[in-house]
Structure formats: C-alpha cells, structure tokens
C-alpha cells in the first residue's frame, strides 16, 4: 500500500470547486436556519395557539429524526407529491429545516438568560418591544448565544457532507468522484478530512476572537 498525495495534483481544481460549493451550501442553509430559528422563537412567543401547536409539532418531529432520514424523505418522497426540486435546493432546505429548531432552542436559552429586570426597566421607561429587543435583549443575549450557535454551525458544516448521498455537488461528492477515477481513497479522503478539520478549526478560532471582542465591548464577563 502506498501513500502518494501526488495523485491528487490533477484533481486539486475539482476538489477546490467542491469545497467552494460546500461553503456556499453551508452559508445558505446556515442563514436560512437562523432566519427560520428566529421565526420559530417569535412565532412561539407571539403567535396564535394554532401556530404554537404547529411549531411544537415541527420541532418535536425534526428533533426526533436523523438528518439522513429527513434527507431521504425530502429527496425521494417529495417528487411523489409532484414536488421535483434540484438536489442542491433540497439539500439546503433540508439542512435549514433540520437545524432551525436547534437554533431556536439556543436563541430561546440566551434570551431566557437575560435578566428580567433589565427588560422591565425598558418597559417602565416606555420603550417599544422592538427597541427593547434591539437595545437591551440582543446585546446581552448575543455573547451568550455565540459559542453555542457556532457549535451548531460547525455541526451543520460537517453534516453537509451527507448531502453527497442525494448527489449534491459539494466536497464529499466531488471526492467520491475523484476516488472512482484514481482508486486512491486513502489520499483523497485524507485530503478531504484535512480540509474539514482546517475549516472547523478556523471557524472555532474566529468565534473565540469575536466573542472576546463582544465581551470587551459590552463589559460582559465570559464565564470560563
């Protein structure tokens, strides 16, 4: 058995392309998951009883399903109901749908950790709910939110490799193609693993820095 990374040389552009696609897919589904997560939090707080029941049902269902199962359901079952979408769209939507309840939980926990008295002071002085959210809740919740939210986004990034099973053109899918061309799974998957690791580590480091800056700017002490 040999280990010769040189076999990859010809495939670097293809792999790079796959990586860029992965990043795009993750940015899109991450942003969607956050938007949907915020909508879930707001809907649960201010929505009608029916909406709350619907949201709770959705959250309970997604939290109970493995991502792979959800992915197969959306990809293979939806077309039976006449909904035929491109694989990348299905992939992005499924990741967003799967991660939104987790994002909602994390946001909810951060909001709950904001001292009630600081919100009451805003109400008493005559601030609107929007102003209270923007000026009082968000700045206090954000430093609490960031570490857990990054953890989730790193999870989403890693899970995006699963999209290869529904033939979404991303890094893992590209790697599979390269393996079938070169018969060099060791080198290919070694390189791919390295890329996932490096990206995750960079994300981790960047949030650490951001957190520190936020904490300094807001005079909030990080407890660790």
């Amino acid at each position, binding site marked *: 058995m040999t280990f010769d990374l040189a076999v990859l040389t010809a495939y670097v552009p293809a792999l790079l392309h796959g990586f860029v696609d992965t990043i795009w897919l993750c940015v899109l589904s991450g942003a969607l998951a956050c938007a949907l997560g915020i909508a879930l939090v707001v809907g649960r707080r201010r929505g009608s009883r029916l909406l709350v029941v619907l949201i709770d049902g959705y959250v309970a269902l997604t939290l109970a399903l493995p991502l792979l199962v959800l992915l197969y359901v959306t990809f293979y079952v939806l077309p039976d109901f006449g909904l035929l979408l491109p694989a990348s769209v299905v992939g992005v939507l499924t990741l967003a749908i799967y991660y939104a309840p987790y994002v909602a939980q994390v946001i909810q926990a951060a909001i709950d950790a904001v001292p009630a008295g*600081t919100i*009451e002071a805003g109400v008493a*002085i005559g601030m609107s709910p929007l102003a209270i959210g923007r000026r009082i809740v968000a700045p206090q919740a954000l430093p609490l939110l960031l570490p857990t939210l990054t953890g989730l986004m790193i999870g989403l990034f890693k899970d995006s490799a699963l999209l290869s099973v529904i033939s979404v053109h991303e890094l893992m899918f590209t790697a599979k193609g390269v393996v079938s061309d070169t018969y060099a799974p060791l080198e290919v998957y070694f390189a791919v693993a390295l890329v996932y690791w490096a990206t995750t580590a960079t994300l981790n480091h960047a949030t650490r820095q951001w957190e520190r800056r936020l904490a300094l700017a807001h005079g909030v002490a990080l407890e660790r």
Partner: protein
Amino acid sequence: MKLNAAPAIRARDIVKSFGAQRILDGVSLDVARGEAICILGPSGSGKSTLLRCLNWLSPPDTGEVWIGDERVGMRNASVPRPEREIRAQRSRIGMVFQSFNLWPHMSVLENVMEGLLSVKRMTRLDASDVAVEALRRVGLSGKHTAMPGSLSGGQQQRVGIARTLAMAPEVILFDEPTSALDPELVGEVLAVMRGLADTQTTMIVVTHEIGFARDVADRIVFMDGGKIVEMGLPAQIIDHPSSARLRQFLHRFTPHGPHS
C-alpha cells in the same frame, strides 16, 4: 406649603389579584404636584404592586389611575389604550427599582441616554446634554464612561435615579430603592432623594426607612393587607399612630424594637 392644587397622579379603588390572592383591595390615593409620599407597610401589604399598577406594568383588575388629566391604560371604562399610548404614558411616570435594573452592557452615560434616544427621540447631542446634567444631580459626574458592573450598589442606584430623572417624568415611583444596598451605602441614595424632594419632585417612595419618611415625606401612607390603613402627616403617623397594626409595625423599626 409646597403643594399645588391639581393632583399629579391619582389612583381610584385599585383592586389587583394574583390567582385567588387579593393583593390590592380598593386603594385610592391622590398625590399633588411637588408632593413626596412615603408608603410604609409590612412585606406582602401590596406596596410594590400598587406602584406597578400606577405605571401599568401590572394593570389593575378594576379601578382607575390618572396621570394629570389623562386616564392611564384605558381610553374609558371599557376600552384599553393601544400599547403605543400606554408607552407614552409610562415615559411620563418614572420608576426606580429595588435591584437598580441598569443595562449592564451600556456605560453609565448610555444608560441615562437610552430612554431619551429611543423613547423621546432626541438627537445624541441633546440626549447627552440632558444625561450629563442628570448625572451631575446625583453626584456622578466623574463616572460617565464607567460600566454599571464596576460601580458600588449606591452608585448604581444613583445611576438608576439619573436614568429616570433625565426623562423629566411628572412623578417618580421608588420601589424600595435602598433595600438591596449595604447599610453604609444607603445614606448616599437617600441624600439624592432628599435633594429631589427639596426641589419639588413629585415622588412616591415605598421604603422601610422610617427616619427618611419622617424627615422628607409630606404625607405617609401605611398599608397592610392590600388596603391603606392610615394616611397623614409624618408627625401624626409616626408619633401618634391610631391603629394597633401601625403601632405594631413601627415598634419593629424603632431603635428599641427587636429588629432595629
């Protein structure tokens, strides 16, 4: 006598229950412009709940609150005001909290400016001028850039007072403003409040500081069991209490009492 004719704030037959518990059982109170009222009473007597009814933080079940000639929270007996109007009314009624409730992510100056910016829609320049003056009045001119967490409890409460003062409210409600403070820090906060009373600020102070109430209050209200039991001039209330409940309450707070 420093009192003017028209009441600054009026409460009529306020009733408030939480579940089966009736916290306020028909409380009526008129506070004249420039008047300082102290409310005394054992814990659970409904003092804090009364303050929270006055600014509609906790709307009463029945009864009326009036600020000037405007009814608080309601357009008339059956039609509630829209939130927007209630917010405008709250901005005219200041509140100082027992636990300060400063915004920990803003500097002292920003804490005092926030209401001016997001409620009164002042420019940053104007808001800053007003905030600087409010902080001067509470003796914290040197602390503009400090974060609340770096201040002593007494200083934090003075920021809380400045935050309210800056809004130029028609009445300020103080909810046990010194109860969360170490004993040695109580004096500086009471001194600031005394200064406000001396300059004819309309204030309603829920407090356990009998000495402050006697010196500063124009009238003292004694509450027990969700009702006003006695109301009158400090000398009359503290030195000549007419009800057994007030005598019993005062006994616990006098220097010779068991809990002095």
